[in-house]
């Protein structure tokens, strides 16, 4: 282990500079964030991820945000284990009918002020699964959505650009 740690010390960090905040996302968010929220949250947001029916592709790229290249936590963004600790719900999937209630309950358990980010094409409008008997459709059919990050799945850089826009806006 010492050898690995030494190697890591001698090599430069892998972490890359951040992407610019997504312009479209900034525009979508401009309306959503209130002054009170800005004051309260500063530049730190706790994120709770909810898979409401995804194929697991979006989760893989959300995971990637934690690796050394993207290092999400350096921006003050971090994933938390409970909705009660969260400011932001990141929701993936074409909300399935079997997950609808769980998503509603998770939303209700998240304290105000809160934002919902719908990640992936399915979360926008049901994606490839729209119209199925087992699917409600986009996340906004179940809970209010503040930001959509499209993609199938969105790449970590796209996710980062969207979340940074959220951070910019919420910090004022």
């Amino acid at each position, binding site marked *: *282990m010492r*050898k*690995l*740690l030494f190697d890591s010390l001698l090599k430069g960090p*892998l972490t890359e500079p951040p992407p610019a905040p997504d312009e479209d996302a900034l525009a979508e968010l401009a309306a959503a964030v209130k002054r009170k929220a800005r004051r309260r949250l500063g530049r730190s947001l706790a994120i709770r*991820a*909810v*898979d*409401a*029916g*995804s*194929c*697991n*592709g*979006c*989760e*893989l*790229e*959300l*995971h*990637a945000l*934690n*690796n*050394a*290249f993207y290092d999400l936590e350096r921006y003050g963004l971090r*994933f938390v*284990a*409970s*909705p009660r600790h969260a400011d932001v719900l990141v929701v993936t*999937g*074409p909300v*399935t*009918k*079997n*997950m*609808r*209630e*769980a998503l509603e309950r*998770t939303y209700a358990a998240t304290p105000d002020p809160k934002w919902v980010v719908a990640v992936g094409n399915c979360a926008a409008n049901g*994606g*490839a*699964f729209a*119209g*199925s*008997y*087992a*699917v409600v459709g986009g996340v906004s059919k179940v809970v209010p959505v503040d930001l959509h990050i499209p993609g*199938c*799945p969105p*790449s970590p850089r796209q996710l980062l650009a969207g979340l940074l826009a959220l951070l910019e806006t919420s910090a004022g």
Partner: protein
Amino acid sequence: MTRTLPAYESLADFAADAGSVAGHRPWPRVVVDTAAWRWLGRELAAGRWSLLGFWGDTGQVHAAIADDEGLLVATLACPDGRFDSLAAVHPPALRLERTICDLFGFESAGLPDPRPWLDHDRWGVLHPLGAATEVPATGADYPFLPAEGESLHQVPVGPVHAGIIEPGHFRFTVNGETVVRLEQRFGYVHKGIGKLMAGVDLMRGAELAGRTSGDSTVTYALAFARAAEAALGVEAPPRAHWLRALMAELERLANHLGDIGAVCNDASFAILHAHCGVLRERVLRACDAAFGHRLMRDRVLPGGVAGDLETHGYAAIAAAIEEIGKRFPALCELYENTASLQDRTGGAGVLRAELARQYAAGGFVGRASGRAFDARRFAPYPPYPRLAFPVPVLAAGDVDARVRIRMLEVDASLSLVSQILERLPAGDLWVTLPAGTGEGVALVEGFRGDVLAWLRLAHGRIERCHLRDPSWFQWPLLEAAIEGNIIADFPLCNKSFNCSYSGHDL
């Protein structure tokens, strides 16, 4: 019903005798009567053969059964909506059978557990692939199995979990810290893929197949494409075969690297997680450079592949492989030399070899418990017969063995990628598929195990397509493997199985 069947040596003998259905490729499909159905069930129960799939269809049910030499699809007609329960004699069929009843409304005579499985009473429709009658969605309670005794208590977990993972419910009954029963409940991510597949063309079918389980998008697209090509009696060009295998091995590599780190992280050993995460990212970036998508989604299509490997993509993959080949041995060495980590993984979540065999557990779950099955060997599809690769097998069946199998498979996939890059043949990328009619079945080895795809085409449109994830036969084994472990070790054991929710729920 009391007809006695001769003692067939192999499934092929039985198929030759019984007469197979025309237009079903590459393995035979045989329509059986109830006597033969019961006989097949008894042989499965006796451990002579393995059940590789069980699914419903209009007016009939199909079971995919394998012996050492090949596969057979046995079809039982259910004209009055009834069939003889397979699960009553062969428990691995149970969840698949409950699903058939949910989706088609068939009645299984003798079904040991008649509770619905994927149907949570929230769809607003009953038997969506059968009569599809509209009903109010009431979300009726689901009765969990009882566990009785003094000082037992229950711990419900999910469907929303603490990590960034898929939804499912785990109901633990514990005595102090020790798990005495785990019962799983799934279906939360059921998206109705079977119904969405009905009546669509092959391109739309490939889109859905590639979104059945996101971490195995190449595997599913490949299984679907191979089944479609089998049904139509066409063969993809050689270069397409090799590029498909290249993508499949890169997918295996990315998943194994990520999960080895994640298992160690669940034992609170974060440094391996960080380093494995870097290597996984290197694979995904190479895939992005080579194929234009990090997960290589929609790159394998019926008839061939969507795009060629250009020089810069070739270089990106070669560079990633070299980097991983250099860095990975140090990570394995660190795992090997860390007693505190192995103290967690050794002896935890033991899956007994008999159970792995009975359930035909695929992938590293089976191979860590002595079941030497790999679809690339069992039913070799091109280009694997021309490539050299080991199929590692261990006997211990614990978390440690599953990690070690995956480490060995990382080495094997690195070598396979190098071999493919060296010998990639020139030529076309795809063939045009006729709008034909036929039935096809395919078995493809993903990182998690063998994915089975079966479909029936009529004039180029899908009439019925069934995709069976390896998790169907692995999830129940997790219930068995966790028994007697402490509940705090569940995340570790669960991650070491890493079954799919979406692939299972369909």
